[in-house]
Structure formats: structure tokens, C-alpha cells
């Protein structure tokens, strides 16, 4: 645990801290919405610790508050959380830890910790980033939810502060470095389009899974993705770690990719 500060660059640690801060703000609105829907404080508090997956918790609260069966609400939430299965496949073996630590490390898997782990080319840095972000979210998400539930009505109208735009913005900011690769960007846009087209017709969670079909766009391409440091063959002898926020010519294939896409 003490090695996190040495293994990770300062910029990565700062981004992780800011991500956790944003997660806490979203947690505020979650706790507030839960109490406003008639749940006692312990419901969002327990969910935020034991489920630790925001979107599914919001969905659970919403369905039960609307009079739905809690078991049906849990199944709907599970559908939303199926994406953790491909996340686990995408992560390098051992990122979640070994031995007994894996039992805790497994629980730390979430959208944010997965992106930070994937962004690190070095295995040790990947583990450290996963752990740092995972623990940060484990602390900040429940803290936000509990404070939000306590403050309740004061933050009830969170949409006025635009807090609902924070989660997509956080994830988008985290995957932008990957989207600089043209093939990945094309597949990601196709996946997003599939998910959007399916949203009106399918239950929550399924559209996002359906987006995985876009990975087929990559199957035909013979050239490897232009992320040399990510080549698993090279992962043992670590190449120069590229600072994430800094400009990295290797990650910018096109001369001027338009941001509006």
C-alpha cells in the first residue's frame, strides 16, 4: 500500500483525487434523492458500501420508490452491472490483487478504477492506480451518499446545479486519451450509437452491453492499435511512462481530429 505514492505519477494521483471528489458530489445527489423518495438513511448508506455501483443504486431506489418489487429492482440493477464482467476480462490478470487481498480488490472494480488501471502501461502502476482509485471511490461514494441523505432537502434539486452532467463528463474525460486512437474512436462512436438507438426499447443496462457489438469493427483491422506501451509483450520491460495530461505525439494519429464528433 505504501508504494502507491512512488509507483504513480503525481498527475495520475491528482486526477484520481479529483475523480473521487466528483464521485462524492454525485453521491450527495444520490443520498438526497434516496431520502426524498422515502428511504431511511441506512438504505443509501448500506447500498453505497456494499453495492458500490452508482447507476444500479439509483435504478434500485427509483424502481422500489415507484412501487416496484425490490427483487425485480435488484435484477434490473444487476443488468446494469453486467458490464463489470467485461471490465474484469479487460484488466490485466492480478490487477485486483492476489490471495486474500483479491477479495477486497474485487469489490473496488468500478467505471473509474477500471479506466485508471487501463491507462497505466506498467503492471505495478496499473495495480496501484486501480487500488488508489478504488479505495478513493469506496470512501467518497458512501461519504457523499450519507451527507446527501442527512442534508436531504437542501440538495434535493440537484439538477439545478448540473450535477447529473458530472458522471458522463468524468468518464468522458477519462477515456479521451483512448479516443485519440482513430480505430478505437470509430468503434466507441459506433458503440455509443448502438446504445442510444436501443435505449427507447430495452431495459436499462442492456443498451450499453449491446454496444459491445462495435468491437467487431476492430476485428477486421490487421494493424495493432497505436498504443505501443500497451502491447502486452512489452509490459515486462516498462517503456517510458507517458504522463497522461501531457501531449503525446504517439497517441495522436490524425493531424487535426475534430472534437465535435
Amino acid at each position: 500500500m505504501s508504494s502507491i505514492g512512488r509507483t504513480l505519477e503525481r498527475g495520475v494521483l491528482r486526477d484520481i483525487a479529483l475523480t473521487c471528489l466528483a464521485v462524492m458530489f454525485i453521491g450527495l445527489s444520490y443520498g438526497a434523492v434516496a431520502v426524498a423518495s422515502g428511504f431511511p438513511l441506512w438504505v443509501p448508506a448500506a447500498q453505497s458500501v456494499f453495492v458500490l455501483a452508482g447507476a444500479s443504486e439509483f435504478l434500485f431506489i427509483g424502481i422500489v420508490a415507484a412501487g416496484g418489487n425490490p427483487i425485480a429492482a435488484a435484477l434490473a440493477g444487476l443488468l446494469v452491472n453486467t458490464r463489470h464482467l467485461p471490465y474484469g476480462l479487460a484488466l490485466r490478470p492480478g490487477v485486483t490483487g492476489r490471495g486474500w487481498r483479491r477479495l477486497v480488490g474485487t469489490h473496488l472494480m468500478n467505471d473509474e478504477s477500471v479506466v485508471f488501471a487501463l491507462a497505466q502501461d506498467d503492471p505495478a502502476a496499473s495495480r496501484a492506480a486501480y487500488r488508489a482509485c478504488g479505495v478513493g471511490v469506496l470512501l467518497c461514494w458512501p461519504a457523499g451518499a450519507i451527507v446527501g441523505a442527512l442534508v436531504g432537502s437542501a440538495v434535493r434539486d440537484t439538477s439545478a446545479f448540473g450535477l447529473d452532467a458530472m458522471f458522463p463528463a468524468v468518464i468522458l474525460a477519462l477515456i479521451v486519451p483512448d479516443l485519440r486512437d482513430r480505430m478505437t474512436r470509430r468503434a466507441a462512436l459506433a458503440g455509443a450509437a448502438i446504445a442510444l438507438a436501443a435505449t427507447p426499447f430495452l431495459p436499462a443496462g442492456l443498451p450499453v452491453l449491446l454496444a459491445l457489438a462495435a468491437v467487431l469493427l476492430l476485428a477486421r483491422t490487421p494493424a495493432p492499435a497505436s498504443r505501443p506501451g500497451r502491447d502486452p509483450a512489452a509490459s515486462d520491460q516498462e517503456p517510458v511512462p507517458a504522463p497522461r495530461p501531457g501531449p503525446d505525439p504517439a497517441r495522436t494519429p490524425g493531424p487535426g481530429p475534430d472534437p465535435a464528433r
Partner: protein
Amino acid sequence: MKDTTLVVAGMATLAAGTYAFRFCGQALRARISFPPRARRMLEAAAVILLAALVATTALTQGHGFAGCARPAGVLAGGILAWRKAPFLVVVITAAAVTALLRLLGVP
């Protein structure tokens, strides 16, 4: 809240099932050895999932359109992120643009 026992059962189901999803992916990954190209595709698959998550959470609410304010804010944040603006600036801008548009009456 009507039936506490049933709600607790639902919460336990959600927590246990989510943990199982988290566990199984890594367990499979450790057991099977994937060729390099398949590994790259698995990584890209995670990015595709996240991009789809961004699109659906930014643009939709339930089964319908979320209104213009939220996607506009997320788009503003995305443009700043592409221009390599600091993370905090990206997130605050997204929330601020959304809040401002709502203040002006945009849904």
C-alpha cells in the same frame, strides 16, 4: 418503505450479484490465455462500454431524451478534455454549462 425484509433481500441480491460479476471477469482472464490481438480487443471493449455509458447517461433519462442542457454540458466538457484542459476544469464546466442552461430555461 413498505417491507423492510424484502428491501434488504433486494439489496443483498444486488450486492452479491454485482460482486460475482466483478469476480468472474478477472477469474476468467487469469485462467484463459488470450492472443495479443484478442487482449487489445478486450481493452477496446472496455472503452466501448464506457463510451456507450457516457452517451446513454448524457443523452437519455429512462427510455427518453434527457433534454438539451445535460448533453450540452457534457459536450462542452468533452471538447475541453480533447483540448487537454485540466480534469477539474472539464468536470466543473460540464456541470456549470448544464446549470446555466437550466437557469435560462433550457430543459
